């Protein structure tokens, strides 16, 4: 699926549909960049999206004053209430309505206030959005739909403001699930998601909204979907993760370095369809793999990665695939530090895997 141009760089397939959507990458490096945080990067991406496509809409609960995380500030003032508007409190309605908009050729960017609240919309996403193109024989599609939701632990969120539901959606063929790790990634990935001709669920790590600050180019740029990125080179063990968990994993990698263990860290970025080739190439190099995510370990997306890697790299593996994930309990309130896959847990697992 990924073509290579003469530079050997991967290039996405440009699809010339009626909206001339393109998934080709743009040069990230040109132009000026400013140091901003995650919610500002997402805000910029939304501004660009609405500017470049007159049929783009942003809607959700409380988006018009800027949203509870300020991701949508300034949009209503700039683009008007007809394009940026609040919906009543009905997630199922919001997503279903978004599918309808997308089916009629608009770009619908729906916000679900917290990923924990996405479940009423689960039916619409799984049964409608994922199957629309398939069952209409490509007469209709809801590719213009992008659902954004803040996910993940935030320190004090408790059961219903901290969940990571990505695994549920990864089980559905027909949609894409994308999770950025930082402001610069978020802006590029979000613009790619919005312009991708498939429905996408975009989970934003809410913990990083204010905490993560990075130089983000001010112009319009896109980052390719379904391409994982090796963010740290290593030779002893491959670590795979996404979102906020990567910063924890990176700290573990730095600690492990002191013990002489060279860790390769991969950011999956797109969970489905995920970039098996990059991960496989890395595992062939190192022979060991560890996956980490905040969601509970049983049935989490780490299980899929683990099974796939074992299928393709069984003889190369030096140790079992390790998963350092959340515990199999509902996301706790006071016990959050014990539940989370912390740096120390990851470090222990790295050592155990390397010394297997």
């Amino acid at each position: 699926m990924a073509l290579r141009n003469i530079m050997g760089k991967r290039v996405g397939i440009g699809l010339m549909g009626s909206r001339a959507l393109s998934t080709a990458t743009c040069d990230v490096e040109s132009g000026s960049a400013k140091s901003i945080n995650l919610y500002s990067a997402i805000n910029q991406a939304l501004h660009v999206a609405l500017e470049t496509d007159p049929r783009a809409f942003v809607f959700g609960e409380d988006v018009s004053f800027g949203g509870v995380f300020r991701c949508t500030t300034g949009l209503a003032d700039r683009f008007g209430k007809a394009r940026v508007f609040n919906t009543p409190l009905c997630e199922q309605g919001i997503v279903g309505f978004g599918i309808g908009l997308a089916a009629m050729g608009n770009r619908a960017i729906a916000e679900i206030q917290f990923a924990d609240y996405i479940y009423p919309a689960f039916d619409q996403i799984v049964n409608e959005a994922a199957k629309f193109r398939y069952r209409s024989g490509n007469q209709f599609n809801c590719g213009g739909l992008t659902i954004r939701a803040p996910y993940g632990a935030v320190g004090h969120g408790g059961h219903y403001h901290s969940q990571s539901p990505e695994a549920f959606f990864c089980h559905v063929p027909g949609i894409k699930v994308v999770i950025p790790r930082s402001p610069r990634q978020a802006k590029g990935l979000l613009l790619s998601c919005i312009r991708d001709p498939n429905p996408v669920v975009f989970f934003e790590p809410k913990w990083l909204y204010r905490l993560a600050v990075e130089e983000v180019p001010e112009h319009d740029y896109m980052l390719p979907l379904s391409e994982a990125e090796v963010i740290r080179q290593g030779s002893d063990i491959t670590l795979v993760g996404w979102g906020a968990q990567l910063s924890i994993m990176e700290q573990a990698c730095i600690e492990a370095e002191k013990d002489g263990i060279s860790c390769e860290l991969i950011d999956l970025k797109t969970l489905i369809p995920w970039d098996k080739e990059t991960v496989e190439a890395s595992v062939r190099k190192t022979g060991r793999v560890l996956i980490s995510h905040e969601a509970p370990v049983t049935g989490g997306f780490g299980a899929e990665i683990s099974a796939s890697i074992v299928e393709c790299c069984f003889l190369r593996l030096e140790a079992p695939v390790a998963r350092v994930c959340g515990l199999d309990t509902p996301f706790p309130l006071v016990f959050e530090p014990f539940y989370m896959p912390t740096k120390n847990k990851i470090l222990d697992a790295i050592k155990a895997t390397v010394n297997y």
Partner: protein
Amino acid sequence: MSTAFSAAKFSTQPFSTISHDSPLVFAKPTSQFFGSTRKLRLTSSSKFNLSRRSGTVVAVSDYVKQKTSKSTTSLLITKEEGLELYEDMVFGRAFEDMCAQMYYRGKMFGFVHLYNGQEAVSTGFIKLLKQQDSVVSTYRDHVHALSKGVPARAVMSELFGKTTGCCRGQGGSMHMFSREHNLLGGFAFIGEGIPIATGAAFTSKYKREVLKEADCDHVTLAFFGDGTCNNGQFFECLNMAALWKLPIVFVVENNLWAIGMSHSRATSDPQIYKKGPAFGMPGIHVDGMDVLKVREVAKEAIGRARRGEGPTLVECETYRFRGHSLADPDELRDPAEKDHYAARDPIRALKKYLIENSLASEAELKAIDKKIDEVVEDAVEFADESPIPARSQLLENVFADPRGFGIGPDGRYRCEDPKFTEGTARV
């Protein structure tokens, strides 16, 4: 399922024949949506078995004006009731203010939603319930828990995340549960509690009709907000409750705002009470800042449910004085609107009523204030001194088997066997 409860068996008037052209709501709305000083009327008809007055519930202020003599027999409440209501409202207010203080001191964390200003609804309804009646609430549930009888110590400890909390520290601010007081929770997710309340009401009806526990007239109250009235779960449950004539009262605490979304801009028809008759139950609007009016309406609605006449939708127009949660800067609401409602503070209004009608003296009310302050202080001290839950509690109660050790050869949970060691579970 409706055959088990077919009209012929228990009810003398089949409810399903309600016609939509005689809506069971009161007079057509005036243009002024804020501030209901209207008279509240239940359309009286023989269908409803209204045993007491002809059906006109008059606004408290009107009532007081009509009285020339101050005889207590024609007042809406007795002295004892008045003091009970006052105490409950002051308790709610003082507790919430203390929560805010504790939050800003870092003693509790997470998302905390305070109830200041809405006390009349909680007190007006819950004080009419028995212990076996159930209450289902939202994330704004501290005061519902207190009114229902959950001790302040248990609620405060729960907020601090301690083992002595009503849910052993697992739930936090938004998930107050109490089996003893039949408080079925605290729900972070709007609308999720309503189907649960519907199920609880069904149980009560089942016990009465099928299991023949004739004196089981337990009622369930479901509290939720204006934003929830646009959610699918709400409509589904109105339908089910009316279809099966469940003993439930749906209480809408319409405080006009859902975080930052104004009710009038989020709802096609902002008059929520009208949604009741659409499903075949009476819909009533009441001034939620006046505890006596709320109480009168609550008596009727709860009475209906107890007599087996089915559900009622009550819309209480109320207001929250603070922001949506303690993290909400509350910049969107118009100060004039806030002032309008602050002037109608339910506690102040009740105090005035009690004093003007010689039901209580200033000194008595002050004594209550002081007593409540002491109770709340004691609750904080208790919560402070309580222990934090042990780490092993994290894995408990995921399934019925409390610690996941399985069932032993004697058929009981292994963890209950004192000879079974604890060392195997690892966190």
